[in-house]
């Protein structure tokens, strides 16, 4: 999950993310590093991880906002009908990323969890791109 804010940089936007996403990305990368077939592959994955966080700006949240994010997630989970067919509820990571989106007044959210962010940010106006759509825009197929 990466959010784009309205600051005019490359492509008229800046890539912004939350600390929670950094942790998730580190976990995925660490998991890959353990299974990588060669040291060459490991080095490439580690280098990619490092460059990713040069390209993407990490947005820090204030303590009250972190608390508000967790409370927002709890409210969303309570609002979900007990018989809901949804596979998952918003996670704390989603909640923190939603607060980043609100803080920077992002116009675009890149995520595959659209319903979660709609529930977490009912009063925010933004558009969502799935990861596939974002990659298509970036020319990756």
């Amino acid at each position, binding site marked *: 999950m990466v959010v784009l804010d309205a600051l005019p*940089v490359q492509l008229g936007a800046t890539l912004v993310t939350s600390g929670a996403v950094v942790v998730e990305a580190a976990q995925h990368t660490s998991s890959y590093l353990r299974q990588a077939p060669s040291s060459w592959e490991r080095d490439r994955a580690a*280098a990619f991880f490092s460059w*990713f966080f*040069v390209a993407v700006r990490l947005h820090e949240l204030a303590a009250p906002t972190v608390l508000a994010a967790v409370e927002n997630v709890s409210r969303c989970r309570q609002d979900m009908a007990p018989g809901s067919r949804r596979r998952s509820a918003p996670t704390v990571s989603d909640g923190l990323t939603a607060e980043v989106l609100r803080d920077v007044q992002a*116009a*675009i959210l890149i995520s595959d969890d659209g319903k979660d962010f709609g529930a977490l940010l009912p009063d925010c*106006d*933004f558009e969502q791109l799935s990861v596939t759509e974002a990659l298509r*825009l970036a020319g990756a197929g």
Partner: protein
Amino acid sequence: MEPEQNRGGRPRRYARRTVAKSVPLDPAIYDELVRRSPNNISRAVNDLLADALEQDKVREAVHEMARLLDVEIDTDVSAKAAAEFEAIFQRVERRRADRAARSAVA
């Protein structure tokens, strides 16, 4: 608490590292800097250079990521993507402005 900026508007922590350098400016560039920041040209130059260096870092990171993925950056695709992103930014901005106008009336 110590103010974060000195009287010149520069970050206080850099005060001892200030470098004075005479740089001839194109008149049109000078006029634009005066328009942007009439009282502090140095600050305008510093802000613009900081932005440019930051963009350069991001561009380098994007190129390194592409190299690690063995893909080439297609500038035609980038231009098309910029247009699509711009259309989204404009739609969102319009909706936010409409919402703000409705709130002001109510």
